[in-house]
């Protein structure tokens, strides 16, 4: 079977899986969910690395480099922030453990 066709199957099945997994995430965690899937989307780093390292031509290398920067910062930032968020969700356990981090005001 042509590999592009197989990739189509992978796509369909992955979409199913995604749909079924994500519909079961409780509203409580919807913000972390958004952040999480975005962080995972940083996987486009995979393609970027190849573009940046294949040394095919200067243009590809440059574009690849920028892509690597973008994807990496997205991954690093994304996973850190998700972890920060999820760390905050606690069951009721007497006195709160860590003191709430001070926050700079912001326009949200």
């Amino acid at each position, binding site marked *: 079977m042509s590999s*592009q066709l197989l*990739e189509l199957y992978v796509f369909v099945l*992955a*979409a199913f*899986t*995604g*749909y079924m*997994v*994500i519909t*079961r*995430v409780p509203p*409580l965690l*919807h*913000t*972390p*969910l*958004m*952040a*999480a*899937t*975005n*962080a*995972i*989307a940083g*996987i486009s*780093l*995979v*393609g*970027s690395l*190849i*573009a940046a390292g294949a*040394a095919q*031509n200067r243009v590809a*290398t440059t574009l690849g*480099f*920028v*892509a*690597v*920067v*973008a*994807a*990496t*910062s*997205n*991954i*690093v*930032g994304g*996973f850190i*922030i998700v*972890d*920060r*968020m*999820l*760390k*905050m*969700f*606690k069951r009721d356990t007497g006195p709160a453990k860590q003191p*709430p981090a001070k*926050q700079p005001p912001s326009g*949200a």
Partner: protein
Amino acid sequence: MRDLFIQASYLAASVMFILGLRMLTRPDKARRGMQLAGVGMLFAIVGTLLNHTIVDFRWIIAGLILGVIIGYPMGTRVPMTAMPQRIALSLTLSALAATLVGVAEYYTRMAAGTPPDRVTMTALGFEIMLGCITVAGTIVAAGKLQEWLPSRPLTYKGQNLLNGLVFLGIIALLITVIADPTQQWAFYSMIGVALLFGTMLVLPIGGADMPVVVALLNSYSGLASCATGFAIGNVILIISGSLDGSSGFILSVLMSKAMNRSFTNVLFGAFGSEPKAVGAKSSAGMSVRSIGVEDAAIQLAYAQLVIIIPGYGMAVAQAQHAVRELAELIEKRGGEVKFAVHPVAGRMPGHMNVLLAEANVPYDKLYDMDEINGEFDRADVALVIGANDVVNPAARSDKASPIYGMPILNADHAKSVIVLKRGMSAGFAGIENELFYDRKTSMLFGDAKASLTGLIGEIKNV
């Protein structure tokens, strides 16, 4: 051998991503789940770096380092209240990466004189199109949310027509380049037009509608990385792309349902463009009862059951910590406190949950709409903190209201209602709220944080 390892690492990564997201269904496992996903990401990266086609590591290393330098503060510094624009921005980044990879791929193939075949070109084309729309759209969205750009809707006559034409332009170019992949002009001008379209699409939309738009763009960027996956024949891109896409899609549906709006309405309606003036017809002749901090404090101090309803105002006022303090204080005095969280309170799904969690409110005190709505009849005080639309009885009663049919929290069933807000101005939906004119409602005007600090002080002295 080495190739086998690469492939194994990809497969492992895909599995870890799915399992990781699956663990997000349980708050107590969620964190471990995302760490698992993180490990998966590491696997994928290491696997890729072993790839034969990578011969020159200088740019890669430079890029990785620079990326970490930029990404780290983005992760540690950004305040929870800035999540909406933070998410928009992270979309920009992943879409940007996907797009650039696509362009590089196309350029290289053309330079090497081996133009991509039709199937590949279709994948590439869609990737670039979706990618560019997302990049431009999310930048505008982030700008509006951060209020660098005017967050009010910018509408002009015939805008939808114009957008439609531009979109047709993109499609035309897309078809051209698919029909004959060597038509470089079509490819590159498509990039330009797509960027333009993304901007024009989001610019007219009001800042408050952004979350829906962002979620929608999220599903686009997901599709974009799927397309990349097809283009460069990499499965893990396809898998994570579709995970990303479905989450974006599901959440945008959820939001527009909870706001009972349709996509079209969100995208082309420029809803809430003319904020209805305070004291519109509905409120004519009605009067509000304002209350002082002291009296409010007394009510709260002696209440058996207080249900707190946080809303967007709490986010604006950064009042989450004060709220927690107040709740603990009431509980110390023997009262019971519950938090009623509406699915679309705030400006993004789960907004209130995150803020309250940040303030160390345990999540088993946070109740979904369906869980809590029955209990309001028992409640002595419903304390509305910067919420408005989500407690607007018009959604139940008034067929004419734009939010008619949207499920709401039954604050008006409580024995008494205290509302913390700055003035009488409307909420997101830009409509009057009879609850504020209800006899058992008393308004405690002022910034939520200030009022709360006041209340806390008073209750201590009661």
